[in-house]
């Protein structure tokens, strides 16, 4: 049995979520005994493929370099995976928007039921996955000949990005399906780490009152080298863009430290961050549900506390 991991990349670098998927692949290959291969499908993606070849534990990197794969359109990439599938026992991808978009299309073409968003591996055919926004955990066994899986990144500590020296082998697929085209991307530019791979996250909720006030959070985030997140309430109120959203329908995160500021703690938000190692809640309402899961709670006015916190962190950094 051999496991194929679909790399998430921007043609230049491999995204961190790939390393979590490789970690899950390692567990599967240890349970079943087999190699791990990585597919880098893109356009002018040699640099990304070379980076993938350095990931520890990877035996081979497949590079599919074609204009049709440049933007990861599922209509084009899915047939490529279908053509590679006969050589593999498992196809894995990170449960990112890219992986979630692509893998079910592959699964249906292979007449396989996908196992979505797994959080643990029991055996080569049995996996644990959260359902009902993480309020229950289902253990499911796949009866299909090939397992198609998306991996919840926060559940698997990332594998090592360095240490491997896999061979890079070119593969080609059917190319463009002629069904869809990429028009444009409007990606948020930020010097801060990505939410899903940040060690520390500072998130703001409705209590922030406006988008302008997020600079108070950003100041604290920058002292901690943290990413900035938000609750759905803050996103819906237009304070910050949607890609800031942490929660059931946003990003699932599990940093070492999560600081929730002015967030009451709706179930939908908790579903996205309750696996964080240490949770700090800052809220003026001492009855807020967020305090029930926070390791450290501070009751008070965030507009007073945030500048104090900023100053305190600055003092300690001197």
């Amino acid at each position: 049995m051999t496991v194929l991991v679909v790399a998430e990349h921007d043609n230049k670098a491999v995204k961190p979520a790939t390393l979590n998927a490789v970690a899950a692949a390692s567990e599967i290959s240890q349970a079943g005994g087999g190699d791990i291969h990585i597919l880098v499908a893109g356009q002018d993606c040699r640099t990304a493929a070379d980076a993938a070849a350095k990931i520890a534990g990877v035996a081979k990197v497949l590079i599919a370099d074609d204009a049709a794969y440049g933007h990861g359109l599922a209509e084009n990439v899915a047939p490529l995976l279908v053509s590679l599938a006969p050589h593999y026992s498992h196809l894995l991808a990170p449960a990112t928007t890219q992986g979630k978009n692509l893998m079910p299309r592959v699964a249906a073409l292979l007449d396989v039921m996908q196992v979505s968003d797994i959080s643990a591996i029991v055996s080569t055919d049995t996996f644990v996955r959260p359902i009902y926004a993480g309020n229950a955990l289902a253990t499911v066994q796949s009866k299909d000949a090939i397992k198609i899986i998306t991996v919840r990144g926060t559940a698997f500590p990332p594998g090592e990005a360095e240490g491997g020296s896999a061979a890079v082998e070119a593969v080609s697929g059917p190319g463009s399906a002629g069904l869809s085209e990429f028009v444009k991307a409007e990606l948020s530019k930020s010097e801060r780490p990505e939410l899903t791979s940040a060690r520390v996250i500072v998130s703001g909720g409705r209590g922030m009152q406006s988008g302008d006030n997020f600079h108070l959070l950003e100041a604290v985030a920058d002292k901690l080298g943290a990413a900035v997140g938000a609750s759905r309430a803050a996103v819906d109120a237009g304070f910050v863009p949607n890609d800031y959203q942490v929660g059931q329908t946003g990003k699932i995160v599990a940093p070492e430290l999560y600081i929730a500021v002015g967030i009451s703690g709706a179930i939908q938000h908790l579903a996205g961050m309750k696996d964080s190692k240490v949770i700090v809640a800052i809220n003026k309402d001492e009855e807020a549900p967020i305090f029930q899961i926070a390791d450290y709670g501070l009751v008070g006015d965030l507009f007073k506390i945030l500048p104090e916190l900023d100053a305190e962190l600055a003092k300690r950094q001197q």
Partner: protein
Amino acid sequence: MKALVAVKRVVDYNVKVRVKADHTGVETANVKMSMNPFDEIAIEEALRLREAGTVEEVIVVSAGIQQCQETIRTALAMGADRGVLVLTDAELQPLAVAKLLKAVIQKEGPEIVIIGKQAIDDDCNQTGQMLAALLGWPQATFASKLTISDGSAEVTREVDGGLETVKLKMPAVVTTDLRLNEPRYASLPNIMKAKKKPIDTVTPDDLGVDVAPRLVTLKVEEPVKRQGGVKVGSVEELVSKLKTEARVI
């Protein structure tokens, strides 16, 4: 052009789910059931396309037990034109649902299919993509904006890191994200009117679809509960505890 929307009956999003004592699933008896919230957004989007004159008819489909008819009625009360219920007591997994929808679509001939990006019960996030694959149609998942013109659909998608816009050749499948629209409420007159709107009932056998599950649920458990911690009195105490006790900064 016809639009087809698929809707799922799920445990209402306000209900705190409880795992059954025998670990076979979550309690659904005597629990409030509603339309999957993402599917409400899908209905709303189809209705707006009809109101804009792009679409002439909105067909709503649901698959499952007899009570799924109520979910279809909700969609009809919002304004959809007619319904199709694929009636079965069998457990339906996304691949089977995609096959059922494909069969209905081949009969009905819609040019645009809109469905929720995921159901809030199994959180699979698969059906739309699978349906598009089986039909050989393009797909746009996690849509926050949809524009249809000249035989193509331009869709803005919510992706990690921002937004992405793709152009799809019609017919196409679009799955909805939260910010696509704000679904309307059904007015009382429309709820009354919906009672007279037609709902066809078919079975998986009628459609020639094998719905046998491919995944076996071995058990369902509660996640480990997180314990609340302590309240601190000041910013200074907080920072000191994070440094020396939790050792995370």
